[in-house]
Structure formats: structure tokens, C-alpha cells
């Protein structure tokens, strides 16, 4: 029984090995969750990834080679992602890995990249570890990270003149990291303001009443939170009847200012929320963004577009630019080119720090307000808070 399977495996493996001998294409590996709960983000990111690859080919390819996209579902599971990353490298022969949504998936893929000496560009995962203690030669990040995000939130708290702060973060890696980032940011911008209450609802929590009532009893004037996606939607829907948003200002990290959250919530989007987003379809920081948006909206078939595709596109572009500069696919040369690499993107210029491998990815921040004619809330005024840890 067992040997038959193995024999067929051997045959399959031989064929694949032969296949891989002549690389005539540049294989761009993609790792996003496209099934289960993570698909809310992974599926739009997948579209962006494909757009990025298409761009390369429209541009005449790289080093005279066409680019193709090799895609795998991570299922938001680090072990699955690691196995998929390995498979893409050893079987499909990808030249680069791009993507990764959660901290653990990002770190797991980064570990594979280190072992296999393949470039990995993290486009969404924000964990600080990736570019600090877990950094290695081949990992780069185009996403923001929790220290940048926390610092921006502290800056807004300063602008809002916060006296005492309640912090609510999901009880997992991103939440813990962001809480630390906010604390560091507060030390810089508002050294006298204290966090009076720290709450940690579990990841994928469904009931926030117990936390909402604690916040309302704690006497803070500002809440900082990293409740992303459905967490924020549920929290806000449950907090509104308590009148939380009438009493307290909410600084929401986790891209709560993005189009998909605002449009999903429509008229239920609460008052007094200051939120962030990587990109806003109605805000054009440069000419390229207009073109990008019309292309994306044609792709999606809707005028309004989500934020995730641009993150994926930036990752692919960063790699393409590095290959061009290195004039080679050799990962060491490409990594060398990536250090300090600077490109233009639809959301402004982006540069990778040569020592930390972290891109200076800032975000748009602003209060979410009702506007004439818009069916849902928009950010206004929009401020770009750059990725600088000001002293």
C-alpha cells in the first residue's frame, strides 16, 4: 500500500525537478489567507498582488523575463503558511515570498525565508519582532509596525489633549505590541497622561459589554484601541446604545478609517472616532493614485475600493525595483538592493531603512465625519502621519 504511494511520489517529484531546471519566468510567491476568517483581507490583497505582477509584465518584464504569480492560502495558520512557503520554494521555485497577514504567519514565513535564503517581503504583518530581534538578511517589511502606529495614536491623543486614557487591545500578539507602542508614544508626547485602564478582550470576541461598561466607569476621556475589522464593528455597535461615543473620544488603530469599515457600518459608524488607513480611495496624495484607483475600481467593478490591494502592490513593486537595480535574481544581491531602496507608490514615496529593513510606511489619520452626499463617513481632515519615531 504505502510503497505505491511513494513510487508515485517519486515519479511526480522527478517530473517536477526536471520542470524546475529551466526557469524562464520570475515567480512571485504570494501568501495570504483566502479561506476562513482571514479572507476579508486576504482576498482583496490577492487581487492587488495579481495587479502588481501584471504591472511588471506590462512594463516588459524583469531582466527580460515574464513574471508569474504563484499563490497559496495561509489559512491564517503559521504552520500551514510555513509549509506552503517551503513548498513554493522547493517545488515551484519562487524567487520571492510576498504577503503574510498575522504576526505569527509573518514570523513563520520569515523563518522559512531565513533557512532557504529567499527574500520575504511582509506587506501586512505589523509585529515589531520581525524587524528587531527576529530580523535577518532576507526579510523586509513594507507594512507599518506597531511602534509607528502607537506613536501616531499618542500624537493624536496629544492633539485631543487627553487627560486619562483607557486602552483596549485584543489579547494576542498585535494587541500586546500595539499597547507597548502606545505606551512608548505617550512617554514621548504626553508624559503626564496615564493609562488608567487596560482591557484585553480575546481575539474573535463577540461580546464587549463587560468592557464597554468598565470603560464608562473608569473616568477616562480618551480610549485607544487596536480592535481591527469586525472587532471594531461589533464593539461600536454594542457601545453606541451605552452612549460611549458621546462621552469619550476613541482613537482607533487597525485601519478603522479604511473604506471597508466605514462603508460596512454606514450610518452605524459612531461619532468621535479618530482612525487610520493606509489608503483612501477618495484621497489622492499624488497623480498616480488617481490612475491606480481607476484601474483597481475597474478590476473590482465598484467605484469605491478597499485598502488591501495597494499594500500587496507595494510589496511586489518593491521587489521588482530591487531586481532591476541588482540586475540579478540572486537573493543576496536583491537583498543588498532592497536595503535603502526607494520607490514611488500611489500613497507616496516609500524607502526601506538599510539597517532595520523596515519601510517608512506612515498612515493617514483623521476624524471620521459625516459629509454631504457621502452615504457613509469619511476621514476629514486627512493628515498623513509619517513613520518617524520623533524624540
Amino acid at each position, binding site marked *: 500500500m504505502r510503497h505505491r504511494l511513494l513510487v508515485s511520489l517519486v515519479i511526480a517529484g522527478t517530473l517536477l525537478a526536471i520542470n524546475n531546471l529551466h526557469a524562464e519566468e520570475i515567480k512571485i510567491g504570494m501568501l495570504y489567507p483566502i479561506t476562513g476568517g482571514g*479572507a476579508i483581507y486576504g482576498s482583496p490583497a490577492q487581487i492587488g498582488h495579481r495587479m502588481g505582477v501584471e504591472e511588471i509584465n506590462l512594463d516588459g518584464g524583469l531582466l527580460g523575463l515574464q513574471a508569474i504569480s504563484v499563490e497559496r492560502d495561509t489559512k491564517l495558520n503559521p504552520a500551514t503558511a510555513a509549509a506552503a512557503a517551503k513548498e513554493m520554494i522547493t517545488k515551484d521555485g519562487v524567487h520571492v515570498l510576498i504577503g503574510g497577514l498575522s504576526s505569527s504567519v509573518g514570523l513563520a514565513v520569515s523563518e522559512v525565508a531565513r533557512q532557504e535564503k529567499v527574500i520575504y517581503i511582509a506587506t501586512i504583518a505589523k509585529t515589531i519582532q520581525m524587524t528587531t530581534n527576529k530580523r535577518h538578511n532576507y526579510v523586509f517589511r513594507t507594512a507599518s509596525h506597531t511602534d509607528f502606529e502607537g506613536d501616531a495614536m499618542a500624537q493624536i491623543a496629544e492633539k485631543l489633549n487627553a487627560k486619562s486614557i483607557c486602552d483596549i487591545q485584543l489579547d494576542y500578539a498585535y494587541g500586546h505590541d500595539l499597547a507597548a507602542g502606545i505606551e512608548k508614544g505617550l512617554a514621548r508626547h504626553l508624559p503626564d497622561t496615564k493609562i488608567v485602564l487596560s482591557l484585553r478582550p480575546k481575539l474573535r470576541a463577540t461580546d464587549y459589554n463587560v468592557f464597554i461598561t*468598565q470603560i464608562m466607569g473608569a473616568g477616562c476621556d480618551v480610549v485607544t484601541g487596536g480592535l481591527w475589522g469586525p472587532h471594531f464593528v461589533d464593539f461600536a455597535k454594542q457601545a453606541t446604545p451605552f452612549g460611549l461615543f458621546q462621552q469619550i473620544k476613541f482613537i482607533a488603530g487597525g485601519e478603522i478609517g479604511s473604506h471597508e469599515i466605514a462603508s460596512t457600518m454606514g450610518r452605524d459608524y459612531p461619532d468621535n472616532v479618530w482612525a487610520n488607513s493606509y489608503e483612501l480611495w477618495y484621497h489622492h496624495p499624488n497623480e498616480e493614485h488617481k490612475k491606480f484607483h481607476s484601474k483597481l475600481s475597474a478590476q473590482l467593478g465598484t467605484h469605491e475600493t478597499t485598502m488591501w490591494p495597494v499594500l500587496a502592490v507595494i510589496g511586489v513593486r518593491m521587489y521588482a525595483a530591487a531586481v532591476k537595480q541588482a540586475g540579478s535574481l540572486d537573493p543576496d544581491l536583491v537583498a543588498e538592493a532592497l536595503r535603502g531602496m526607494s520607490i514611488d507608490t500611489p500613497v507616496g514615496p516609500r524607502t526601506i531603512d538599510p539597517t532595520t529593513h523596515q519601510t517608512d510606511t506612515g498612515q493617514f489619520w483623521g476624524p471620521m465625519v459625516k459629509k454631504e452626499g457621502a452615504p457613509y463617513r469619511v476621514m476629514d481632515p486627512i493628515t498623513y502621519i509619517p513613520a518617524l519615531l520623533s524624540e
Partner: protein
Amino acid sequence: MEPFLEFIRENLGSPGLAILISNPQFAFIQLLNSISMGMNYFIIAAGLSLIFGVLKVINFAHGAFYMFGAYITYSVTELMGLSFFWAVLAAAIGLMLMALIIERCLFQFIYDKEHLMQLLLTFALVLILGDLAKIIWGTDQYSVAYPAGLAGATNLGITFYPSYRLMLCVLGPAIFIALWLFIERTRWGRITKAATQDRDMLSALGINVPVIYTIVFLIGSALAGMGGALASPFNSPAPGMDANIIVECFVIVIIGGLGSLWGTFVGALIFGLVFNFGSVIVPNAQDVFAFLLLLIVLLIRPWGLYGRAESEGQ
């Protein structure tokens, strides 16, 4: 040992307990939180419990039914523009239809198989229904508005409390009483109850047992759909919401005692209380409450609070 002690220190100790003791209003609000949460869970778990009681099948797909209920509510209210009441009805009926198809095409063939087989068949359904929801509704998340008149808060004298959640506090017991009356006071109910105890006896009496199975499965599924519909204003329909709820429903049904409606009701309340008061006292242990509760109950009472032992002498 040192890292373990640190781990304990990190996770214990909060100002919550002090507030709870010193502020009765705060404690009262937590009580309301517990009840409304428990009732939301009860409506869903009652269906699970009913199905187990009669069919002896632990239905993993119950969470998926709940998710479909929430999605249907979104479609009916936001896309078709009908009122919330019709959406709840549509969710219940929609799930009944879905359950009918599943029961006739799949379930009826595995009633005589081992429990493991049945459990895994429902697990297969979870996988397929998850993809089906993705095909129909995509991977976006949606928001369902509170029904008119229940969006705000009600003044209870001591405190204001969200009207919608208060409605759940009333609706939960109402559904419990309705189910109880159905089982205790109607012919169909009595037959159903008899079916929980001895299937062979019923078929010997000439009662069409398969029909009872079908009906119970439909009612149980309708409750899941209704639960999803009722939760949708504060739990946004999104992929993966089935997985978020099903394990907690298992915990409730098992600590109450499999197949006992009263047990499920009590289990849901206990779960609500432990979850809410636990979150106040130990604010970062939400992940553990459900399983700790299950563990403690099963260690003390292996067949749940109101469950009966499988057989004497075993």
C-alpha cells in the same frame, strides 16, 4: 517554576474586583450583561441541545446554521429593505429549508452509525457550508442595523441599559417557556420527549420515528438561524463567525447536560455569568473561561449539571 509564577502574576490581579464590590450599580450592569449574553447563547444552544436529545447527534454545523441566519438577516434587511422582524422569520424559515435538505440527503443515513461518524459528518458540513457562504456573500463583513425602537437605551431607574439587549433578556426566557410548553404540553412534544429516552419503544408503538427526527432537526436548525438573526445587530456577519460561536455552545450544552433543555438554560446563564464577571476580575483570561468551566463541571459531574448517566454500572 519562576517563569510560571510570573505567568500567574501577569494574569491575575486587577482593579475590577474592587469596583465590583464597592459599586452595586456596576455589579448590576454586569448581571444584565451576563443575562443578555447568556440568553443570546441559549437561543442558539437550545437548538443544539434539542437535536442531541432526540437524534443523539452533536451537530458541529450548528454554528454554520447560525452564520447563515445572520447573513440572511443582512440580505433581507439591508438589501431587500424589509424590517428586522421579517428578517428573523426569514432566517428561521430559510434554515428550516436548509435543514430539510441536509436531513433528507445526509443525516437520515447515519442515525444508526457510531457517534464519531455523526460528529464527523457534521464537521464535513461545516467545511462545505463555510465555502457556500463565501460563494453567496463573499468575504466582506456586513453590519445589520438595530431594529427601529430598540437602537437606544432604556432607563431602568438604577441605570440605563441598551434596549435591544433587554429585549434579549426577555426573549430568551420566552423561547425557553415556549419550548418547554411544546415538549410538556403537546402530543408532538411528548412524543419528542419519549424519543429522547427510547427510540425503539416508539417505533414499536407505531409512531413514525424518522418524521420526528426530521421535525426536531428542523426546529433545532430554525433556532440556530433565529439566534444568528438576533445576534446580527451586534455581531457583524462575517466569515469565520461560525467557528467563534460553536465551541462555546458546545460548552453550554455539555455543562448543562446533553439533551436537557433546562440544563442548557442554566448552562447558558452560568456561562454568561462566568464570562462577564470573570472578565472583570481577570481581564485578560477570556480565552480560558469556557474551557475551564467545562473542565471543572465535567470533573465534578461527568454527565453535566442536569444530564443523566449513560447506564448504571458502567
